[in-house]
Each structure stands twice: as structure tokens, then as C-alpha cells.
């Protein structure tokens, strides 16, 4: 008989109460490179050698199960979705729940929950996984790779440490959908193919403006606003009111023009009836040359008078710095399977996509054609594969004497072949009808 070990959660006679889950300390606390909750959750699942989806299902409690009709696909990827890190019930529910289970305090710092009541929810978190391959490479050598919260914040497009653009696509092209079930889900691996995300190239050097924004947001992540999460007593409204009162040249029109929003938006922010997006707050901070913390905590003491007469020159449309180099790189991208979209290339080169189309029409056309061909071939293949699976499932049901219907096929196949899109629904219904017709003929 075991003498000491008593219960299923490691609680033992003579031992102080243990945490129910391993207290996994987040990386980078107090720095701009703080870990995200998604990454922490993936590492926690890895410690227990289980799929994160399995752990999610096991830990899910009624208090944090906000969405009742959660689909199987969502269960297997909820930590990847933007609402897991956003100002949302899901994020607050999960942070509290994980804090209880692991006894690690202040997990809300791994999300943008400390900004609740200060900024608008819309578009703060990027809806795909992003990363800096050089950061991953560095972290892998030290044995502690993790995903940073900074990478997931939408206005941030560059790594402030390595001064390169963040990457959101693996070499495999993120083509497999849904992600392969066998891929190891960890921050440093691609969820589609399981390859390391550290060795992805070519990397593009980020312009100073992108690095500046990343630095601003990074400073915010290590500020007292994030570390202590004080209640939002003062806000952007206070900042605007006091800045406009102290700087005579500040008018609604001038601020609106500089930030690129309407005058009524600035008025609403000033009155506190609406909240600005994080992107707008970043622009406000750049305009007044102060930190994001100052703007968000309504402290205009360090705000400087903007130089209104000297607005930054707008980039000339169609201008390209080094056309020969760009052609060479575009040809390299053309060799990828599939090549990136023009929008993505535009972002990487810091130009408008239409500039690529107008300056290099031949390459742009080939890029678009190749990408379309590869994607459509892949889509056709996926749909064929699914149609075959539906037909097989329908026949199996019929053989067992069960009338094949779409719902039964869905239940039978589970999350492996989800039926989401109209084309899938139609394909499944057709497969069931075909089996029924053949049965009727046989009778």
C-alpha cells in the first residue's frame, strides 16, 4: 500500500498543498519581450505531453466556457485565436483559471487585458501567429524558445531587437487546412508542418518607422501600466483635454489630420464617449512625442508641442528605392511554392502592392497566376479528399443500416473532415443522396 501518496493531484500526507498544474513561469516578465498567454499554454501542454486541445478540453470549466456551441476546430486552436490574448471574456476567464491551477500570479500581463477600458477592442491582436525567426533562433540556443506578446499586437510589424519584419508564414506556405494533427504544437514550430520557425528566410530589414512603433509598444509592455494593472481612472480623454488646454496650437482638426481620422473621432475620444484603437494611440504618442503609457494613463506632462508646419513627407506613390534588387528578390519569391501575395510583398518591401503591379507588371502577373494556380489546385485536392471521405462515411452508415444524413456523417468524421463551407455541405449532401439513390435502386 502506498503510504504517503493519497490523491490524484499530487497532494500527499505531510506535504504542503501543491499546485494542481506545474507553475510555469512566463518568460520575459518586466521586459518588452514578455511571453504571450498562447505560448505559455502551449508550453504547459508540452510539459504534460498532451495535445493543447486535449488539455483545453480537460481544463475547460463552465465559468470560462463562454461560447456554448464551440466547434471542434475551435477547441483544437482556441489558443491561436486573437480573443485568447485580447480584452475578452475568454482571456480573462482563462487567466484567472490558469492562475488558480498553477498558482502563478498576474497572468493577465501575458494578454492585453491591462489595457481594458483604455483602448478599443477592435483589431488589437493580429489574427495569425507571427514571429521573429532570429528571436526564435536565439532562444533555441539558450534552450527557452517562446512566443512573444509583442509579435501578436497588430500595430507592431517589426522586431525591435533584430530590426527585421515579423513573419507570419512558414516555408510550407501555411497551406494545410486544418493543421496537421501530428504536428507538435509549440511556439517555435509551425503548426502546419512541424518545422522549426527559426530558419525562415529571406528576412527583410524593417524601416525606422516600424521599429519605432515596435519600441513604443515594447515600452508599454514593460511599463507600470502592464506590471501593476492599475484601474483606469485617467484615460486618453484626460490626455487629449489637458494637452489641448496646455498647447494652444493643438486643435481637433490638426490632430485629426495628423492621425488620419475624422474630427468627430477625436472629439469622441476627448469626451470619453469612444475609445481609440491601439493604432491611433500609437499615432497620438508619436504626434506628441511621448510614451504610450503617458497617453493611456492620461498624463500629458511629457507631451511636446507637435511641429504642425512640418508634416512628414508622404511617400511618393510608385517610388522604389532599389528596383534591381527588388526584381531579384521578386524572382526569388516567384520560385516559392506558392509565392506570397502582392499585398504581403508590398508590406515586406514597404511599398503599395499596386506599385509592384505597375513597375514590374510581368513578374507581378506571374506571381499572381502561380499563386492562384497552386491555391486552386490545392483547394480542389482538399475538396476531392473530403468528398471521398463523405462518400465513404455515407456508405459505411448505409451498410450498418443507418440512413446517411449530413449530421450523422459530421458526427462520424469528427474534426478530421469538418463540414464548414457551403461546398462541403453540398458535397456531403450529394454523397448521402447518392448512397440513398443506389439503395433505392437495389430495393
Amino acid at each position, binding site marked *: 500500500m502506498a503510504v*504517503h*501518496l493519497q490523491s490524484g493531484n499530487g497532494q500527499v500526507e505531510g506535504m504542503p498543498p*501543491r499546485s494542481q498544474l506545474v507553475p510555469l513561469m512566463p518568460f520575459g516578465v518586466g521586459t518588452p519581450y514578455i511571453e504571450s498567454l498562447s505560448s505559455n499554454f502551449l508550453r504547459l501542454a508540452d510539459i504534460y*505531453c*498532451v*495535445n493543447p486541445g486535449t488539455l483545453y478540453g480537460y481544463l475547460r470549466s463552465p465559468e470560462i466556457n463562454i461560447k456554448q456551441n464551440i466547434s471542434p476546430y475551435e477547441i483544437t486552436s482556441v489558443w491561436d485565436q486573437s480573443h485568447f490574448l485580447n480584452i475578452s471574456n475568454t482571456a480573462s476567464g482563462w487567466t484567472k483559471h490558469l492562475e488558480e491551477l498553477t*498558482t502563478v500570479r498576474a497572468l493577465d500581463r501575458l494578454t492585453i487585458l491591462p489595457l481594458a477600458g483604455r483602448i478599443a477592442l477592435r483589431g488589437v491582436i493580429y489574427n495569425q501567429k507571427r514571429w521573429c525567426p532570429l528571436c526564435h533562433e536565439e532562444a533555441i540556443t539558450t534552450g527557452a524558445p517562446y512566443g512573444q506578446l509583442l509579435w501578436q499586437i497588430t500595430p507592431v510589424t517589426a522586431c525591435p531587437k533584430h530590426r527585421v519584419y515579423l513573419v507570419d508564414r512558414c516555408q510550407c506556405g501555411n497551406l494545410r487546412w486544418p493543421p496537421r494533427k501530428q504536428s507538435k504544437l509549440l511556439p517555435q514550430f509551425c503548426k502546419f508542418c512541424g518545422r522549426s520557425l527559426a530558419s525562415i528566410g529571406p528576412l527583410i530589414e524593417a524601416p525606422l518607422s516600424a521599429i519605432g512603433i515596435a519600441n513604443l509598444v515594447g515600452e508599454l509592455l514593460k511599463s507600470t501600466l502592464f506590471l501593476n494593472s492599475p484601474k483606469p481612472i485617467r484615460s486618453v480623454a484626460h490626455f487629449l483635454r489637458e494637452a489641448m488646454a496646455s498647447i494652444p496650437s493643438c486643435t481637433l482638426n490638426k490632430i485629426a489630420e495628423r492621425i488620419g481620422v475624422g474630427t468627430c473621432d477625436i472629439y469622441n475620444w476627448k469626451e470619453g464617449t469612444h475609445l481609440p484603437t491601439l493604432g491611433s494611440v500609437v499615432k497620438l504618442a508619436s504626434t506628441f512625442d511621448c510614451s504610450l503609457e503617458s497617453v493611456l494613463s492620461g498624463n500629458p506632462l511629457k507631451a511636446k508641442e507637435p511641429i504642425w508646419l512640418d508634416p512628414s513627407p508622404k511617400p511618393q506613390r510608385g517610388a522604389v528605392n532599389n528596383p534591381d534588387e527588388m526584381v531579384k528578390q521578386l524572382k526569388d519569391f516567384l520560385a516559392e511554392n506558392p509565392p506570397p501575395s502582392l499585398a504581403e510583398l508590398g508590406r515586406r518591401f514597404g511599398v503599395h502592392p499596386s506599385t509592384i503591379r505597375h513597375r514590374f507588371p510581368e513578374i507581378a502577373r506571374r506571381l499572381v497566376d502561380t499563386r492562384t494556380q497552386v491555391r486552386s489546385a490545392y483547394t480542389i485536392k482538399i475538396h476531392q479528399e473530403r468528398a471521398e471521405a463523405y462518400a465513404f462515411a455515407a456508405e459505411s452508415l448505409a451498410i450498418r443500416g443507418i440512413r446517411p444524413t449530413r449530421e450523422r456523417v459530421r458526427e462520424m468524421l469528427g474534426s478530421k473532415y469538418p463540414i464548414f463551407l457551403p461546398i462541403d455541405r453540398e458535397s456531403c449532401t450529394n454523397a448521402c443522396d447518392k448512397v440513398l439513390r443506389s439503395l433505392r435502386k437495389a430495393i
Partner: protein
Amino acid sequence: MCHTNSSDESAQQDFKKVTPKDALNLSASNKLLWFEKVRFLHPRLSEVLKNFEAMSERGSGTDIILLVGPTGVGKSTLKKYMWENLMSRLQHEMLTDPGFIPAVVFNGPASGESSFSWRTLYVRILEALGDPLIHRKHAVIVVNGCTLTQGSSHGTTVSALHHASIRGLIAHKTLLLMIDEAAPILRNRHGDSLKNAMDALRSLANVCGLSLVLIGSYDLLQLAILDGQLARRCSILDFPRYRKGAAEDEVIFKNMVCNLQDHLPLHEKPRLGQLSPELMDECLGCIGILKDTLSRALSLAIKNDGNWSNELLERALLPKASKKAILREILDGENNIRNAAFGSGKFNQLGDIEKSLREEGGVV
């Protein structure tokens, strides 16, 4: 692994505060339970405990500790003391780190299968660590640079459980892995198979940076002499019985008899000190056997309206056949352990060893 229920736990907690005087007022069944919980730290036990602490220290050069001794000598009591010492020593660390589980203790997996079940061993480790989803573990493989998980649709695999055990022990910073009644590890294993099993256990201890403690009878001795590498990393800790004829042992045994006699929850305490030499013979010098005998006699006395008599004690003694079987095992074990246990090493022994090896014909 057995789990005691909450009422037992609360009773156990209460018994800690019950004095021998208070025990007289307990119910009949609780009197027996209380007496079962009575423990004494006798000199031999404390000596073994001290040696164990020295060997289990990090950097002591020992990966595996084999704690061997005759059946009923008090190995399980020793295990409890080891546990309590560890808890009191690491109290501060445990309070600062709520995930720290310094020791994992369980009984050797005897699942009824013909050979030792690694799956059961890993499941026991994971249960002790409080791991969730034990039957949903996956292993990780790397194929062409892709890191993939490998699981089974019907549950988990042994390799996944092994991987999960290692991850769990490392994550909880476990220092000691104690397996009581470890004899099932030897079951149906000989030669290379036994060596492989020991290598697997040693590797587990090595990878996780912990000391593995196997507790059992003298059968375990064969594990330590399988090969040179194992012999180097493995220490044998002998927990011997008290011997008839050794004056000091006889005095200690008599003291133990008197101590136990004083803790018998009876209004009229028997005078067992006079019977100490006979009891030492009947219990083969083992304190555990002595306590079991007194427990049986106590049960009979309680049934007899709380009246103790020497006839009842005699009825509670071990039968002759049982004694013979135990004694044979003890004598064999004592013969084997003479030159193998911790502390038996001396200067200038090499000449004797070479001589004996030449006599055996193993060395030319």
C-alpha cells in the same frame, strides 16, 4: 496504488495527538489502529536513516540506492521516517515553490502480468505527480526536420508514458523516487533482460537528476552486481535485524519490547520485559515482526474483555513453518550481503578479491 479515504485520513491525523493514556478510551477498532500507528526511532533505524541521508545527497555519486533487509525488520517504518525528514528539510523550498514535489513514493507495480510492466510503473509515477490526462500522452518524433507527435488512437504508448514521466519528474524538480516492494522488477528477468531493466531505471534517474531508491528484501542484491557500471553507481543499504548473542542488540531489543508494552492500549499493562529473550527468538530479532505479533495479541486481548495473558501472546506468535521460511530467507540474504553493503569496504582488500576470482576461474 491504494488511496486511503478521507475518514481514515482524519482518523490518522487525530491519532497523532492521542497519548497512550487517551488511547485507553478509544473504541476497540481504533485502539488497534492507534497501536498500528505507533512508531519508535530505535538505534539501528536511526543509523540506517543517517546513512541513507548521506547517500541520497546530490553529488554523492549514487544513482540507485538499494535498501534491503529481512522482511518485518521495519523497512516501511524507515520509509515513513525518510519521508518525514525530507519534508521537514525541504519545507521552505516547498512553500516557496508550490510545484516542487521532492519525492515520489509508491509500491512496486505488481499488475499480475507474467513480467514486470513498465506501463504500470510510469502510470504510477504520473499518478504520484498528479499529472492529468495520463491516458492521452503522446511521444514526440522528428521526421525530416518536422517535429511531430506520436500517439495511439487507442490510448497512450509506453514510450509516450516514459517521455511524460521524465518531463513530469523534471518539471516538479523531484529529488527522490522511492519504490517500495521493488521485487516485481526482478520477476521473470535474468541476465541481459535484467540488466536492460536496470539500465532503464538508471537512465531515468540520470536524466531526471534524482536518486532512485528500491526497497525490498535481499532478492534485490542481484541488481547491484550485474555489471561494473551498475556496481559503481549503485549503493546497497542494509537494514539488519537485532542479533541474539550480541549484548548491545539484546538490550536495545528489550527496550523496544518495553516501549511497545507501555503503548499497548490496555488498562493493565503486561510485563513483557521478562519475555524479551523469548520474543527475540520468536520474532527473529525483527522489530516489525515483534510489533505485528503484539498487534495480533492485542486484538485477541481486546476480544477477551481487555485481559492480556501469555497464552494469548503465544497464540499470536508466528507459526513454525512461517518462521522457517523467513529465517531461511534471512540467512541466505545475510550471507550474500556480508561484502556488498554500504560501509563494508576496507583498505587492502584487492588481494583477497583477486585470489577469490582466480579460485572461481573467472580470471586467468
